[in-house]
């Protein structure tokens, strides 16, 4: 059998973002449409040419409503990727697969969220009678995603010597990146270690600044074949490699029943990703790592092979994730300090790094790595 591959055969040629903020006017649908409109305009592609769609399974905007509103043509490919924050890179990867195999020619991927109000939080709507994996967590007062992460974080700190200051360094690094980014919700707010250590607890050992923002906003991308990309006015960001990942015994956030609880979903995605990629972890000059909670960054650094097991905190301590480090991370501020659009704004920043237009541009970038959420069925891409 010949080797089939999506390598460099599809590119992101359009990108659109709404404003990121709290209490934005307009419905989630309107925010989605505005981001998609911007992405199509940037790519110079007419709405009626769109024939494929991919999004998160938590998306409230329906494909058919979007197609009707925007004036898309006949849609012949659509997919939804499960597991919330784990799905972002999956939408881009499946769009690339659809184009590379001829199932579609122009694919739009998007994420739209209005989550800045406390009443909109998913945990606030926990049912009185819970089923499935929630039955083993919620009755015991583990209600929020941060509660699922807290014991994983504590045990990791216990086993590998990571400290609160290490988590704080992640938050401070991303905040400093956001301070340079006019789109970031936290552009005007600096963060010191003293403020970090003095912040209120949310779920110990995690405090307020270990948790991502809640944001109203939308992000969209337009993907076409590499041939078609030559006719687009933007610099293409080629989808070089893509993988999804679930490891045996892993769960949604509360991963306490793996034999090895830190062999998380990223390990499966990493094996496949690096097998298919000409660019290897040591070649990556800038990365966008999913950061709903600071400890996820440590686990993803290890899972994707940027650090050995247990060494990520030391990597952070040495300043390697900062602008002059070996691997600058989340250069727009990430989920912690730019906006939380379920990781889709991490993909935007990777596109900007490839285009050379980031507000924290890394020199001589020839590729950009992005991963979706650790601890849930996940995904990752390498762009170039």
């Amino acid at each position: 059998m010949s080797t089939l591959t999506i390598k460099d055969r599809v590119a992101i040629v359009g990108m659109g973002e709404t404003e990121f903020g709290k209490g934005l006017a307009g419905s989630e649908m309107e925010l989605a449409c505005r981001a998609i409109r911007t992405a199509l305009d940037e790519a110079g592609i007419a709405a009626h040419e769109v024939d494929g769609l991919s999004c998160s399974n938590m998306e409230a905007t329906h494909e058919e409503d979007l197609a009707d509103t925007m004036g898309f043509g006949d849609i012949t490919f659509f997919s939804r990727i499960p597991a919330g924050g784990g799905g972002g890179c999956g939408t881009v990867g499946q769009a690339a697969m659809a184009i590379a195999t001829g199932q579609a020619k122009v694919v739009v991927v998007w994420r739209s969220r209005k989550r800045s109000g406390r009443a909109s939080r998913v945990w606030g709507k926990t049912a009185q009678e819970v089923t499935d994996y929630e039955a083993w967590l919620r009755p015991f007062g583990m209600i929020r995603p941060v509660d699922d992460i807290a014991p994983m974080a504590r045990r990791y700190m216990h086993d590998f010597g990571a400290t609160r200051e290490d988590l704080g360094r992640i938050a401070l690094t991303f905040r400093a990146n956001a301070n340079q980014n006019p789109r970031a919700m936290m552009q005007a707010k600096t963060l010191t270690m003293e403020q970090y250590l003095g912040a209120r607890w949310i779920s110990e050992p995690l405090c307020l600044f270990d948790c991502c923002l809640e944001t109203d906003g939308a992000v969209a991308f337009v993907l076409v074949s590499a041939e078609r990309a030559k006719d687009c006015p933007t610099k293409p960001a080629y989808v070089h490699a893509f993988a999804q990942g679930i490891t045996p015994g892993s769960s949604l956030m509360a991963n306490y029943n793996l034999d090895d609880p830190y062999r998380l979903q990223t390990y499966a995605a990493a094996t496949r990703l690096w097998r298919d990629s000409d660019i290897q972890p040591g070649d990556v000059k800038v990365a966008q790592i999913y950061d709903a909670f600071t400890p996820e960054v440590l686990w993803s650094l290890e899972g994707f092979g940027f650090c050995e097991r247990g060494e990520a905190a030391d990597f952070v301590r040495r300043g390697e994730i900062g602008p002059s480090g070996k691997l600058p991370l989340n250069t727009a501020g990430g989920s912690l300090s730019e906006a939380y659009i379920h990781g889709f704004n991490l993909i935007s920043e990777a596109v900007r790094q490839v285009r050379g237009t980031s507000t924290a541009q890394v020199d001589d970038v020839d590729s950009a790595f992005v991963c979706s959420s650790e601890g849930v069925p996940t995904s990752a891409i390498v762009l170039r």
Partner: protein
Amino acid sequence: MENKDIVIPATDDPDTAGFWAAARERRLVVQRCGDCGKMRFPPRPACTCGSFAMGWHEVSGRGRVWSYGVAHAPTLPAFADLVPYVFAVIELADAPHLRMVGNLATSAKAAINSVPQDAVAIGDEVTVAFRPVTDEVTLPVWIPATQSEVVQ
């Protein structure tokens, strides 16, 4: 029950009903495969060996704190008056690769914030007790060895 906002597990799922039925009888069970003997939690309809002969196996109810968190506000109304409280991941003595989430308490009837966090550490020994919360639902609760000595 006194707290109408309390979050309870569904007890009528065929895959998990046996766990909750045993809890009502104050027994802690996990699944054990009738063919290969492997123990499993959380419950599933089949074993990784391919067998569907899943049975329930009573374990000793002893374990250790694998890790824990301490919840602070904001949370659901049912838990709002209890913060900060500890929730723990318990490694079962009979099957250390199986871990269950539960609360720590000084006795079966004591509140989930009755064990203060400075009395908790990774590795602490705990023993299960049972707390009926509705006619159908009895929740396991874990009594730290240090706390049960205090109570006695």
